[in-house]
């Protein structure tokens, strides 16, 4: 019987882009690395994502964004997390993110940005080494 502490990760797709292949690959890959992954599907609002993150008491929120709206959407998610007193949740991002935007995302409070070509193992290692 396995009752050790499991790391819980919410994989969410905010905004309007309808491509979830990447999000599914990540969700599946993290599952195989031993994480408990909650996948909420396409077209989620920041409010929905934060509400799910709080109810599920996740350690990590992973946002998959391909639409180009990553700055606006991420800022909203992080603001809502603060409102819920939930800044301790690690926020990471994947998708199509131009290098130039990475510093601004980090300034908002994003811990890691993973663009295409990232190996899932690296994401898993990053999460494990960045949680308390």
């Amino acid at each position: 019987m396995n009752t050790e502490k499991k790391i819980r990760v919410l994989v969410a797709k905010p905004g309007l882009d309808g491509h979830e292949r990447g999000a599914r690959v990540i969700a599946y890959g993290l599952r195989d690395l031993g994480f408990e992954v909650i996948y909420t599907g396409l077209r989620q609002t920041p409010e929905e994502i934060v509400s799910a993150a709080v109810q599920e008491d996740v350690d990590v929120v992973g946002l998959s964004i391909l639409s180009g709206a990553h700055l606006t959407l991420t800022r909203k998610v992080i603001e809502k997390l603060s409102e819920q007193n939930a800044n301790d949740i690690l926020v990471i991002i994947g998708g199509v993110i131009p290098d130039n935007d990475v510093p601004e995302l980090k300034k908002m409070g994003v811990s890691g940005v993973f663009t295409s070509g990232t190996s899932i193992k690296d994401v898993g290692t990053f999460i494990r080494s960045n949680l308390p």
Partner: protein
Amino acid sequence: MWEDWKSLIVEMRKGSVRGLARLITRVENREPGWMDAMQMIYPMTGNACVIGITGSPGAGKSTLTDRLARELFDRGFKIGIIAVDPSSPFSGGALLGDRLRMKEVSTLDDVFIRSMATRGALGGLNLSARDVVKIMDAFGKDIILIETVGVGQDEVEVVKAADMVLVVCVPGMGDGIQAIKAGIMEIADIFVVNKADQGEADQAVADISAMLELSSDETSSQVPVLKTIAATGEGVLDLVTIMLKLQEVGRIRSSWHEERIKEEILSLLEKEVAYILRCRWDQNGNLDQAVKQVIARKKDPYSIVQEMLALMHLQ
């Protein structure tokens, strides 16, 4: 944040969703002191009605749970949902996707959804599902819906946790003989034939009804069999009406009440004793020693267990 259990429980009782969620995590992880915490919580429980929703994978349990929760929410009930999905037996990880199907209620206040992985527990639920029910009850939920993992024929743990069980079937799953087998077909307080827009729905209803008529238990013939199409919401209104009527008649499984409490005590004891012994044997090396002796064929597992029981004066 809320390092000690007591302040966490106080926070939860004040209505903090974050406090509730954290408390569930810590109990689920069996953190030190969890049993003392449950002792504090127990007196605050006993008000919620617990409804189990079970059935085969892909029968539409999550979608139906979503519709039921919405209908009950609209009638003014505070709803908690526990949605269980399987853990991987290989990696220990899990992909919890029930929330994805709960579009109606996942954004509503007063509806709290918690996805749980089985973490190796058999029987369709998670080891701590019953504790989580109590925590949600103490939080003030009126109705708690437990959606099991997709089950086969024999996973009936949900009966032990719920006051009322819905067994969700789909058309075309088998003939009248499937319907009279033992196991899951015996635990329903209500049968739901979902995806009723597919052919053979009436045949499924007929098979189940015929099975109920064959039963030697007279109350069985009164078990309702309903058709729904969870995807559109058709039939859900009737289902909710019947559920609430059954609930009014009294906790319909009240005859099982003593049995349930007995089973809960024994199962807690069993888990704790096994856990404590395992830790002790792991630490003092007796377990490793025993494994080596069996591999070398100097001893067998049966005599090892008897020796260990004798050491504890249990035999």
